[in-house]
């Protein structure tokens, strides 16, 4: 594949999404394309299978050769047989009532004879390890299975080149692992692959990494060279592997990405934990535990059975204290969201219940409880509906009947806190995803609630935006607000939360201080979760670190 001088501007776009890209890829090579949101990653992939400029029109120039033939002027359906595209949103890619029919859809469109379609279904499903799911309804599958099915339905067109546009972003760790395994196995079969991903784990199948910024390639090198350069990664919205940060901090040369091997290497170099430094960390943990406030939310024997008969929660007991920064972690479907929706009464308890400040929470109270308990939903687009940023943030205080002067003061405060002041008159729908997420938080903060509940507040954001959101929450927590977040991103939990609850199969399987929870990999494994790299590294060294800085401060070279 060869791309030269690629430029593209969307209709009504104010700048070029792709601005002079030159790119080449050898057959069988896997390349990761990374960069902050809006860098042009998706636009680049869309030009390769002709969606740009056939479907999205705009100013287009440049040349694309795919498998030795010019791609320009070709229809998307012609290119689809050479270049397969897997999207982030797996729900939209599936529309059949039986898995095999989703796989058959592409070949049917191309007029492949029926007997051959049967064989293609077999091949494609076995390539993603889903032979047994042929007759299943896609909507009954887990996220990871759905995305694998979406990959199979692209494979059925037998493309030589496969493009993955953040194919793992919306998945839980279990699903991400499944899809990454599929990508690696496709690569080992000799397919040519381009991956767009925000997480360092997702970049592992790549041979080479290309960094995009404002529609241009600004850096390009072998995977390890790029991953061992934390600075350039951070500057482009990619989270550096924690082992790379550690090795760079200790000037140990190229990083060993596997935490166990890294620990072995570091030990051999003569590094040992300094007991005084560890004691200091333990003392700090204990102090935080002792200074917890009184119980604010009491969950007692909570059970929930959905109208379709599925039991989502089994006897949950949980105390949330004033000033806690609680992370509820677990896979999708483990009951996290169901649990927190009881805290402000969005769901009625089947058995047991929730006490907030001594009063029982009932569904009839939802709209009134919004003043005390703010709830930020997973997808900011399910929340935002006003045509001005100001009105969005003013919605809650207006509902609570504050005077205009009060409303404007509250909106000002809330927008200040999330870094959106000065944007009052902007249209929320033109903000970036990270800004929309922060606006969603502001629109709840403006009611000045005692508790802030956030359902996966960082999903789909790049590293820079993820940190902005989390630092904003940490600041709020410092001011005394109680924070509850649902997430399955454990490095983020390690860095920001004070406590964690681990959910699996509708049950609470572990609860405690953050270090205590993350230092129990065997229990986390039962929830299919893996502690962050730095914690796994630390446990090998004898102490569960939560941040790279902690390891930097407490490891001394004994030589």
């Amino acid at each position, binding site marked *: 594949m060869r791309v030269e001088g690629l430029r593209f501007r969307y209709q009504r776009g104010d700048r070029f999404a792709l601005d002079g890209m030159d790119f080449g890829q050898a057959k069988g090579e896997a390349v990761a394309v990374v960069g902050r949101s809006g860098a042009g990653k998706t636009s680049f992939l*869309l030009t390769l299978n002709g*969606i740009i400029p*056939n*479907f999205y029109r705009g100013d287009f120039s440049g040349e694309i050769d795919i498998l030795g033939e010019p791609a320009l002027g070709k*229809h*998307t*359906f012609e290119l*689809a*047989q050479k270049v397969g*595209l897997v*999207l982030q*949103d797996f*729900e*939209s890619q599936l*529309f*059949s*009532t*039986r898995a095999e029919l989703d796989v*058959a859809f*592409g*070949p*049917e*469109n*191309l*007029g492949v*004879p*029926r007997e051959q*379609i*049967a064989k293609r*279904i077999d091949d494609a499903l076995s390539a993603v390890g889903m032979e047994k799911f042929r007759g299943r309804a896609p*909507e009954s599958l887990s996220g990871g299975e759905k995305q694998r099915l*979406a990959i199979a*339905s*692209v494979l059925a*067109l037998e493309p030589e080149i496969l493009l993955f546009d953040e194919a793992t972003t919306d998945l839980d760790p279990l699903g991400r692992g499944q899809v990454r395994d599929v990508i690696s196995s496709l690569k080992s079969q000799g397919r040519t692959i381009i991956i767009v991903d925000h997480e360092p784990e997702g970049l592992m199948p790549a041979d080479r990494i290309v960094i995009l910024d404002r529609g241009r390639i600004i850096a390009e090198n072998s995977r390890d060279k790029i991953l061992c350069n934390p600075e350039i990664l951070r500057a482009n919205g990619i989270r550096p592997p924690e082992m790379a940060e550690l090795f760079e901090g200790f000037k140990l040369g190229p990083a060993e990405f596997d935490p166990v091997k890294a620990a072995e290497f570091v030990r051999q170099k003569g590094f040992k934990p300094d007991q005084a430094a560890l004691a200091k960390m333990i003392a700090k943990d204990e102090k935080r535990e002792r200074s917890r406030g009184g119980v604010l939310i009491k969950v007692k024997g909570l059970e929930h059975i959905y109208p*379709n008969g599925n039991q989502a929660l089994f006897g949950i007991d949980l105390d949330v204290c004033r000033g806690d920064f609680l992370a509820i972690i677990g896979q999708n479907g483990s009951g996290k969201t169901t649990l927190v*929706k009881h805290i*402000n009464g*969005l769901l009625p308890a089947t058995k047991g219940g929730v006490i907030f400040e001594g009063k029982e929470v009932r569904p009839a109270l*939802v*709209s*009134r*409880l*919004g*003043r005390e308990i*703010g*709830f930020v*939903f997973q*997808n900011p*687009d*399910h*929340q*935002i*509906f006003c045509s001005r940023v100001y009105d969005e943030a003013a*919605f*809650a205080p207006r*509902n*609570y009947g504050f005077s205009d002067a009060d409303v404007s003061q509250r909106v000002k405060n809330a927008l200040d806190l999330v870094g959106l002041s000065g944007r009052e008159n902007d249209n929320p729908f033109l903000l970036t995803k990270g800004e929309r997420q922060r606006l969603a938080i502001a629109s*709840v903060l403006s*009611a000045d609630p005692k508790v802030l509940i956030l359902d996966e507040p960082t999903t789909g954001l790049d590293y820079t935006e993820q940190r902005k959101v989390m630092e904003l929450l940490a600041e709020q927590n410092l001011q005394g607000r109680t924070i509850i977040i649902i997430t399955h991103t454990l490095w983020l939990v390690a860095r920001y939360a004070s406590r964690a609850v681990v959910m699996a199969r509708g049950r609470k399987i572990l609860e405690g201080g953050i270090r205590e929870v993350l230092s129990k990999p065997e229990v986390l494994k039962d929830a299919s979760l893996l502690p962050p790299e730095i914690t796994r590294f630390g446990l090998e060294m004898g102490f569960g670190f939560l941040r790279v800085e902690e390891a930097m401060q407490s490891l001394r070279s004994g030589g």
Partner: protein
Amino acid sequence: MSDFFAAQESFFRRLHPSGKMAALLLVFVAALLLDDPRYVLILWVIAIPAGILSGAFKLLRRLWPIFLAVALASFVLWAVFTRAGTILISFAGLSLTRQGVVYAGGMSLRLSVMLFFGLVFIASTPIEDLYYGLVNMGLPFPASFALSLSFRLVPIFSESASTILQAQRSRGLAAEGGLVSRFKSYFPLFVPVFLSALRRVDQLSIALESRGFGAGIKRTSFIQFRFSARDFIVLGFCLALAAGFIALRILGLGMVQF
């Protein structure tokens, strides 16, 4: 709601989709021909076994409040607004006539039974069968596909609408009070539902394009249906039903006489 469209194995499910559509059409013709409730009731008598043969009877039974609401609303409307006939009672300028009440009964049975048969059809026809049937009857594939897909999107939109409503209630939106204030308070719901639908459709069209949709090549089909004895039995039955109702109509029976 989404489980409603996940058709189970059933007698109707195995029917040729084109034949099933024709059969549905014939039942609708029959329903529209006569308005005497005693005759329309015949269709409800047939509707029960049809519901069982669709394999979705349990789900349909759960929807009885909807059928009742449709039946009651149409009964009241037709009874009040039919002015011809012998007056039974008059009140505040409105009057009920004997024939009007009977006619309203027929109309309410007719509407609810058509709704019931429509749902029997949808519940026993997955979208692939639906567009297969439409293409088979000569409709172009893109149009058939779009039509079928719209059924599939209904539960998805209703799900996102309920999430959005939850989000707004937890920001102090009170969905209480009279009809007007209730409607006004639901207004903010439309914007995000509409936008999330647009976004979804946008992603969906990229996915479709990337899988060769609209290639303009003669499309093949992995699923195949052949007309068999059961199709002819069902079609024959519906044909006889429609013919019988036509005959009654010609004989001047089954119509309310004013």
